[in-house]
């Protein structure tokens, strides 16, 4: 797996790297520690922070390197993610909420929204990776989310729960009302659409060597994800990228942003197709060519 671990020298980004180190328990990863200098005064501290992370991650039997860039943090991370063909971007979240988030924006939100690959946002409270909650909506995209979560659970030796929320209401007399209140086990036993999906999720977990269970909750999607995440004491919540593109972006509700905003746990947003980001400064999307003259590259 190619991982881009981002740092701005802050405590949040150090925590993010520390948390992501759970992913490196298995050998063979290629990790790039990436620092973005937005202000010259920060350059020294960011370089120092990257060196410390490098020293910490090196024993993890992965190929670790350091890269630095100069510019707007979110844009530089997105450009590196685009050009570097990464599988995963790891960013810290400073915990801005409400008006502050609205006014100052959030690097992690922008990266999650426009990155071409999966993104893990690590929150302040993230410490250990003992339990993973994979939220699955159904269909192949839902199974893709489960597969990535299962790979991580297997590597980190964490427990894992796959959650599917049903918020359907019956609109006709011939609706199969029983399914609307059934448990995961009942749905699997009855071989319903949701049951088949959950059975496939269990297979994916077993195939990846992860241990865990599947669960169904009934209610509003966001409320039930929120309740399960809090009640279950999970350390990482995995969701699919529901941002959509083009018209679907306008039509579909943004469940992923709700999850990112509402939960205090680390969130992994799974994506498998590129979505070119518009720049916040109004310029066209970045080209895949790296800006070599601005980038100091090296393995520390």
């Amino acid at each position, binding site marked *: 797996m190619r991982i881009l671990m981002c740092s701005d020298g802050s405590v949040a980004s150090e925590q993010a790297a520390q948390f992501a180190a759970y992913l490196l328990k298995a050998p063979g990863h290629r990790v790039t520690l990436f620092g973005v200098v937005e202000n010259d005064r920060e350059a020294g501290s960011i370089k120092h922070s990257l060196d410390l992370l490098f020293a910490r991650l090196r024993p993890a039997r992965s190929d670790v390197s350091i890269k630095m860039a100069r510019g707007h943090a979110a844009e530089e991370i997105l450009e590196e993610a685009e050009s570097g063909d990464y599988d995963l971007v790891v960013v810290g979240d400073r915990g801005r909420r409400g008006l502050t988030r609205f006014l100052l924006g959030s690097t992690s939100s922008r990266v999650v929204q426009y990155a071409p690959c999966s993104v893990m946002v690590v929150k302040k409270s993230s410490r250990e990776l003992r339990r993973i909650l994979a939220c699955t909506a159904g269909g192949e995209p839902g199974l893709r989310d489960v597969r990535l979560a299962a790979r991580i659970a297997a590597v980190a030796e964490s427990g894992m729960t796959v959650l599917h929320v049903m918020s359907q*209401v019956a*609109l*006709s007399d011939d609706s*199969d009302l029983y399914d609307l209140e059934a448990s995961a086990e009942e749905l699997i036993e009855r071989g319903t659409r949701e049951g088949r999906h959950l059975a496939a999720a269990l297979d994916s977990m077993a195939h990846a060597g992860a241990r865990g269970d599947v669960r169904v909750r009934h209610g*509003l999607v966001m409320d039930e994800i929120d309740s399960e995440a809090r009640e279950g004491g999970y350390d990482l919540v995995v969701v699919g990228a529901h941002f959509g593109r083009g018209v679907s972006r306008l039509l579909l509700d943004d*469940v992923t942003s709700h999850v990112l905003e509402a939960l205090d746990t680390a969130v992994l947003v799974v994506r498998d197709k590129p979505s070119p980001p518009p720049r916040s400064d109004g310029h066209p999307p970045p080209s895949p060519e790296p800006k070599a003259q601005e980038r100091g590259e090296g393995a520390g």
Partner: protein
Amino acid sequence: MKINARKLAYAVVALALFILAIQLMKAGAKTLAPALRDASLVETPPNALGFGWLGAYLVLSGSPVAAATLGLFNAGAVDATNAFMMINGSRMGASFIVLFIGFLYMLRGHEPKRSMSMGLLSMLTTWTTYIPAMLLGYVILSNGWLDGFRPAPASELISLVDAVFDPIVARITSWAPGLLVFVVGVGVVMASFNLFDRALPDLNLGRAGFGEAPRLLYRPIVMFGLGMAVTTVSTSVSVSLGLLVPLSARGYIRVENVVPYIMGANVTTFVDTLLASLLMDNPAAFTVVLVEMTSVALVSLVILTASYRGYERLLLNMVGAITRRRRSLTIFMLALVGAPIALLAV
């Protein structure tokens, strides 16, 4: 696009019946108005609300009551405020039949939550938007804020309608008393709505047609717009909801999608009433309906933009509380019958 001749014929006949019904109710209400004023059935806005509400129970639908209300308003039997409240009442009682059937299922041993959730959700969505909208609409109407938005009189259309339908109406009114003419008008408008429902296209798209659509969550404002658009054509909330059924392979759809859809449908369900006001050539009647639509739309938009998640939770909690025990559901059903009767006494 293939046009179904039978459905087209249904639509044409439905429109003709609708116009005839409006003309009959206009004529019947004119002779009824003095008697109604003397009977003092509708003296206060709460009376009017209860009257429209009970009327919807009696004819099992809101639209005929709203159209009849305009007939009474046109004849001067009720004033603008009371007409506005009667139209509100007609919507409050419109989905009663769905609940009533669910209640009968429950009495036959079905679990209340399963048999009644959708009817309750629909009714509670309507009530929770219409009650604040009623207050807002009352203020708008009292201050005449929308009086300026009146269409230019469609003289040629009205002349054409008069030329075609006046002889029929004159013939009926020559031998039938005013009350009977009005009642026949209500019957004809119900028949026209029934025919119009049959004129709507059948949607049998099933699983293949919509793919993953049922599992997706749409933005509330998108579903609100869709509900408005579909109901502009269907004119009935229940018919619009029926059109959603094929979206799910197994006949159900998510709460998150259906609530804003109902909110949108509740705005444009007055399109037929708006058309009735135009056919009556009464600008004040048009204003009453416009105020109704505007106030419901404004309240819905405020809910959708400011507190939609909390609103969804509130509705589900209310449905849960009502269906938790058979006793609470029975009390709720009794209150549904008692409330409009109590309003008539206020």
